[in-house]
């Protein structure tokens, strides 16, 4: 537990992705089974202990600590697991030897006596404290029932120091928030054992924690695990942006690019699973799709929701966001934002892997397959029937569907291969929209940009002549421009609200964005999708920036 606690502690304070990766790689290489497997499962939120919940932890604390002191502390700290970890009473002998050693007490025995006194409280002696392993903790928590959980958790907490208690409680309750996605964990595994990340992605979801066969394979101690009859994830085939060139439609098929989330639905071993692009399982958020997908197959498609405004057709990404990131879904959610999948590829069907086949053949089989699925939840993404590239360009420019983000170009003779390979698939997004906005607030960035004001909130003019925020952007500019913007913020700060600087409303920024939607996030009632700074308009007076009304006309 000590190593795991140290890892969590480092991850919390480490902001760069590469540094996080290095920390996990080091941990995986130098920690034995099964601890490392449980640890990585905990980091990626793949563990659940139904008997241990935060209400139970609060109740347990109340048996050791005054409730009022707990309440005041919880209010200050803001997190139940951390409060409990810090408050859990421990024996004085394990808490550092220098304590109070210089106090010149006149009423109490000298500090040396206190220091050398044997432990009298419930805390365990020092040597036992570091011996609790992650797997022993997982075993104990898994065996817990509602009745036994408090005593089990208490005995584990007694064996740990404050950092260890924090790690244990986060492992037990979830909500680790250390910025480690499943994708990052898989990359760390691949890097640690020098294996292909595509292989790791396929195997990951097929093997339950603590992933012993996976580590055995990674370390060359065993064959690659067999995946028959398991609903495992196949790494996605990805596209390059189509920069300036054109392609010959004789070689490439064109499809609409939908503005939803890319998903893979897999049925295997009588189980259906939905995976997101990062290979995270999101089945729990879309139970209606899991229930409706009853064929032995693997599909690749876009998850969308139907919108009333769109007459039951696909709604904008904004509507879909209501359904994302949920562990359970209410009936109201299911009714208000009904999800469906627009299918564009078939990776396996009836036990046959179609990935080696060319797109043309997979497409032929896909068109035959989709009617086997419930039409209420699955439809086919149509091929755009353009005569030539110019015709396609025209259609792309004219597309007004809320859920269309652009065009996909797929090489007709290409097999389905993992990752982003040159020349096979291209994405050709709609030209971004732009608006001239006025910088209103600025904040410092993270990591390399910690000393720069690099995050900007900008606004447009209301009919009443008030500047209302419409978005926030922190990219799109060069390093030189960033230096200039940073200086502008420092020289033009009017007010400070904690980390936020309010600036003189004088600088016009041309902001590019993919689309704009109604939203409660900003006072303007608008929110941009993928906003970035496209130009700094030092030449333009702030009064001539765009009005909210202009942006409203762009809403899809």
């Amino acid at each position, binding site marked *: 537990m000590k190593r795991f606690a140290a890892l969590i502690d480092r991850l919390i304070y480490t902001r760069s992705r590469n540094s996080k990766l290095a920390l996990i790689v080091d941990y995986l290489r130098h920690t034995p089974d099964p601890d490392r497997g449980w640890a990585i499962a905990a980091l990626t939120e793949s563990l659940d202990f139904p008997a241990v919940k935060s209400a139970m932890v609060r109740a347990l604390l109340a048996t050791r600590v005054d409730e009022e002191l707990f309440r005041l502390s919880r209010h200050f*700290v803001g997190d139940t697991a*951390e409060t409990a970890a810090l*408050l859990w009473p421990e024996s004085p002998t394990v808490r550092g030897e220098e304590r109070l050693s210089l106090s010149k*007490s*006149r009423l109490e025995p000298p500090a040396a006596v206190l220091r050398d006194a044997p432990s009298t409280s419930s805390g365990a002696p020092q040597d036992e404290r570091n011996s609790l392993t992650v797997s022993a903790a997982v075993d104990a928590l898994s065996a817990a029932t509602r009745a036994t959980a408090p005593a089990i958790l208490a005995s584990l907490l007694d064996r740990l120091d404050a950092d260890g208690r924090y790690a244990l409680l986060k492992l037990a309750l979830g909500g680790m928030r250390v910025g480690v996605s499943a994708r990052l964990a898989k990359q760390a595994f691949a890097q640690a054992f020098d294996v292909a990340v595509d292989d790791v992605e396929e195997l990951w979801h097929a093997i339950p924690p603590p992933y012993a066969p996976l580590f055995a394979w990674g370390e060359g101690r065993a064959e690659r695990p067999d995946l028959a009859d398991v609903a495992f994830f196949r790494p996605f085939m990805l596209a390059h942006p189509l920069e300036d060139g054109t392609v010959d439609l004789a070689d490439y098929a064109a499809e609409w690019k939908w503005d939803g989330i890319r998903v893979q639905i897999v049925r295997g071993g009588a189980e259906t699973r939905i995976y997101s692009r990062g290979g995270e399982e999101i089945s729990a958020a879309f139970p209606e799709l899991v229930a409706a997908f009853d064929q032995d197959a693997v599909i690749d498609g876009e998850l969308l929701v139907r919108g009333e405004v769109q007459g039951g057709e696909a709604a904008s990404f904004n509507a879909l966001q209501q359904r994302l990131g949920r562990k359970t879904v209410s009936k109201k959610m299911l009714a208000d934002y009904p999800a469906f999948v627009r299918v564009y590829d078939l990776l396996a069907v009836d036990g046959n892997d179609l990935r080696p086949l060319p797109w043309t053949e997979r497409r032929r089989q896909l068109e035959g397959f989709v009617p086997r699925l419930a039409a209420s939840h699955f439809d086919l993404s149509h091929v755009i029937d353009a005569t030539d590239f110019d015709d396609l360009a025209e259609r792309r420019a004219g597309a007004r569907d809320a859920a269309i983000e652009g065009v996909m170009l797929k090489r007709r003779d290409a097999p389905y291969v993992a990752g982003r390979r040159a020349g096979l698939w291209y994405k050709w997004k709609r030209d971004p929209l732009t608006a001239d906005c006025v910088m209103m607030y600025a904040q*410092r960035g993270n990591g390399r940009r910690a*000393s720069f004001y690099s995050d900007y909130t900008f606004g447009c003019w209301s009919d009443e002549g008030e500047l209302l925020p419409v978005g926030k952007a922190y990219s799109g500019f060069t390093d030189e421009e960033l230096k200039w913007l940073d200086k502008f913020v420092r020289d033009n700060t009017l007010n400070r609200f904690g980390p936020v600087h309010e600036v003189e409303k004088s600088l016009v920024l041309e902001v590019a964005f993919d689309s704009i939607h109604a939203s409660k996030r900003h006072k303007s009632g608008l929110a941009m999708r993928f906003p970035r700074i496209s130009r700094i308009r030092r030449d333009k007076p702030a009064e001539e920036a765009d009005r909210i009304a202009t942006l409203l006309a762009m809403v899809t």
Partner: protein
Amino acid sequence: MAKPKSWLEPHPQGLYVKPADLWIDPSRPVERAAVTHGHADHARSGHGAVFATPETLAIMALRYGVDVAASHNQAFAYGDGFERGGVRFSFHPAGHVLGSAQILMEYAGERIVITGDYKRRADPTCAPFEVVPCDIFITEATFGLPVFRHPPTGQEIAKLIGAVRAEPDRSVLVGAYALGKAQRVIAELRAAGWDAPIYIHGALEKMCALYAAHGIDLGDLRLVSETDKADMAGQIIVAPPSALNDRWSRRLPDPVTAMASGWMRVRQRARQRMVELPLVISDHADWDELTMTISEVNPKETWITHGSEDGLLRWCELHQRKARALHLVGRDLEEEA
């Protein structure tokens, strides 16, 4: 015996000792002030006469140009004091920073101690806290919640040295309050055997020199502004917290941002400050030190000032100790804890 309220009045801007017509740590200029220590939220400029330890007066002279030699300003060594309006004042070590003192007041057979800020653990830069028996004990409560338990200082210093050695191409920038914390971190590093030059922000230069002049050896200190960037790789730099993520830090080789403060105990606090290496080193008593000190002093009544008054008040209630919270204004708890 006189009722304490009749001769010591808590006001939002400080404590007023009525028979002596004197304020303790007032937050605005007054005619006569007794000052516990040199931090800006206790020692203000513009008082008519100041009563303090020689070290505190020296610090006030450095910061505000207070005239140490002027006859109306009086310096008192630990254990010494003066009498005014029938009140006997004396200064006793508080263990907070160089020169920090508790002030004991005796009047009409009653003893009141005001701690100012204090801590109980070892600090190579100042005299250790002394328990002074009294009837009314006025204690600070910066860390008056049981979540605050500072780890051993040596452990945090070892963490700092470990971080520097782990990445010799980078530097570690430690944010530490300019008076007290910065010198303590440096002295603790020296005690732990770190004998390389330590690079400091210009804002620390004079205070470090003042400490050295009082016999506290801080070793080889060099100014960042006079050093080449490359020479600071693998080295420790100490700066005030405000400089941590500011333009100033761009002159350092890829710094790891550390911060020495008791607030670093709480992870979210550390994250908010963009700290990569939190060091839980504080010049204030933690929860155990606060509660243990109240037990040791064993006063008839405890008054609690600045900090988490509610937590310590609750503890007193649970231990059947008479206590009340004073609500003084102008105490800056964030920066120097």
